[in-house]
């Protein structure tokens, strides 16, 4: 009857491993990154594969190469706290000197990020933010309020300052989107001829967004303009307008300047784009992380500019730096 139960043996091995791991657990204190040791930084994207965050990663990689920083980039496949938090926990386990993250939820991420801080990891927020920023070293983001206002101005100009307009948002609870919406709504108050129809929350996924915007086009045949809040929303709104045969008649202002949006701007489906500077945000993230690790002065908040891009100025070199890429150039 000996050796009848290999799984029990294996179980024993695992138990030993786990116990050994527990026994040898360390205190998780940060090493500080002093001296010649390269600073280890991890960037956790809001969602992987998105041109905005990929461009941010490119900017971060370029800055990291310049500063001699060891940078790792990670991101979950969907935008949700329940996917980002396990990812964050794995990153905490690797004990980088600092991490910068685009948090998926303003409240859910507070506690896990505090855990990172207590493990000795400097935390920097990029793009989105959280409810309690008392413990973070720095928060870097586009000035989304101003971006929203710029969108209101651009859209008003395109539609002759009159007619009903619609906001196509992603999902609520995203701090950047809320700021853009507020900026847009405030900006519209300057134009009494414009009726604001409100915000359509669409979630993510171009097909679904396109479908929802199509229904809005059917409900409001006199619709004059759409402001699409984010990458997917721009694409979805564009598809719907095109499918309804209203390309050019309904003016669309997009936020962000990914390759697809720029292409659509050039072909006249979108009339203006409000672009952020993700590469700059990524580079700032690395710089602030290094400063925080080395104990140098950090900027508690950094707001980066946005630009209004139209078909007329898209080719100009000073505007080109605002365009997003999915491959680091």
């Amino acid at each position, binding site marked *: 009857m000996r050796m009848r139960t*290999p799984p029990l043996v294996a179980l024993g091995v695992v138990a030993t*491993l786990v116990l050994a791991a527990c026994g040898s657990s*360390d205190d998780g204190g940060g090493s500080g990154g002093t001296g010649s040791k390269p600073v280890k930084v991890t960037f956790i994207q809001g969602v992987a594969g998105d041109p905005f965050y990929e461009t941010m990663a490119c900017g971060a990689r370029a800055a990291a190469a310049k500063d001699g920083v060891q940078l790792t980039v*990670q991101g979950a496949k969907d935008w949700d706290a329940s996917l980002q938090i*396990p990812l964050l926990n*794995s990153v905490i386990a690797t004990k980088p000197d600092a991490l910068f993250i685009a948090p998926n*939820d303003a*409240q*859910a991420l507070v506690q896990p990020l505090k855990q990172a801080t207590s493990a000795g990891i400097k935390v920097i927020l990029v793009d989105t933010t959280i409810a309690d920023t008392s413990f973070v070293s720095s928060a870097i983001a586009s000035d989304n309020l101003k971006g929203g206002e710029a969108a209101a101005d651009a859209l008003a100009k395109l539609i002759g300052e009159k007619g009903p307009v619609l906001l196509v948002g992603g999902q609520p609870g995203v701090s950047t989107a809320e700021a853009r919406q507020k900026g847009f709504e405030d900006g519209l108050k300057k134009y009494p001829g414009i009726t604001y129809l409100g915000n359509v929350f669409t979630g993510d996924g171009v097909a679904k967004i396109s479908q929802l915007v199509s229904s809005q086009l059917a409900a409001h045949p006199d619709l004059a303009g759409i402001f699409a809040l984010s990458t997917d929303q721009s694409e979805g709104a564009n598809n719907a307008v095109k499918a309804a045969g209203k390309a050019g008649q309904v003016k669309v202002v997009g936020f962000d300047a990914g390759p697809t949006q720029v292409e659509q701007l050039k072909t006249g489906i979108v009339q203006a784009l409000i672009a952020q500077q993700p590469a700059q945000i990524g580079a700032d993230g690395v710089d602030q992380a290094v400063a925080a690790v080395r104990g140098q002065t950090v900027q508690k908040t950094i707001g980066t500019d946005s630009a209004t891009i139209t078909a007329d100025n898209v080719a100009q070199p000073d505007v080109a730096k605002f365009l997003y890429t999915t491959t680091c150039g």
Partner: protein
Amino acid sequence: MTSPGRLDTATTAAPDPVDGGAPPPDPAAERRARLLRGLRKRWSFVVLLVLVAVFGTLRPDAFLTTFNMRSIATDASSYLVIAVGMTFVITLGGIDLSVGSVLVFSGVVSLQAMHWLGTDTWTTCLAGLAVAVLSGAAWGLVNGLVTTRGEISPLIATLGAFAAAQGLAFVLAGGQDMHDVPLTLANGIGYGSVLGIPWPVVIALGVAAIGGFAMSQTRFGRYTSAIGSNEEAARRAAINVDRHLVKVYMLSGLLSGLAGYISLARFQTTTLNGHSTDMLLAILAVVIGGTSLLGGVGTVLGTVIGVTIPSVLSSGFVILGFEAFWQQVAIGVALVIVVIVDQRNRRRAALR
């Protein structure tokens, strides 16, 4: 009704027919052969061991820490609760695609109930738990009735529930993630632990233990695998098949509701977008664990192992610094390989 590859019974080590014959000429060779056969049967467990060993060797400082083990366990626990329900459904020969949506739906109505009460005590939390579990079970009842009375494939019935529950959750929540989960719940269950083990893990293991017992030792479990292996025979053996089907789908819904409640406690938000692929992960865990997709053979212990593999993989990949998309690739490949090997072993076992 023998069940090859079954892991959850204490009597699993009963001698193979081959071993029961004449004394082997070479005890050492026989022992090796037997060990090999045992390992093959527990393929998924070996995969898990190898993964832990590989990641642990490459980055012992990061992977083999209490913190990381706890993170992996917590991550896996959220899938384990729904995967236990899924084990019963698949053993029955059915499928439940609605689990992720029901999880979200139950979280939303549970949080709304707790907001409606407006208090922040353990009584509030218990009321929330009751609402979560009951609303989950209600979806299970719908799934069960639509499948049995409507006489349609569970694939369609639960796919419908998947879409409907998701949509209703969004409607009820106003399209946005709700917050302000009672602090008693968040701090007590979400961040709380017993003897260093997080509450979500304790609850999930409790569910798995009860599920494992029910599957192997009770009439409920016997009926489940009986119906899964031959529905007509079960019917002739005077088992009320339809009623049992409804019960099993209700169990799956109930556990999804419980998982939604735990998710509320862990994330303090309704995580509207995070569970669209939960059913795939649960099915994957169940199948990797050794439960047959064809029904009839179910093992809850296997599911516990199956649910750990994707969590270990994603944690290990992040720690090694792989790009996020490779994790999905690896998990997909792992599923297919495990199932291929498992089926081959089953066929070989059937031939013996």
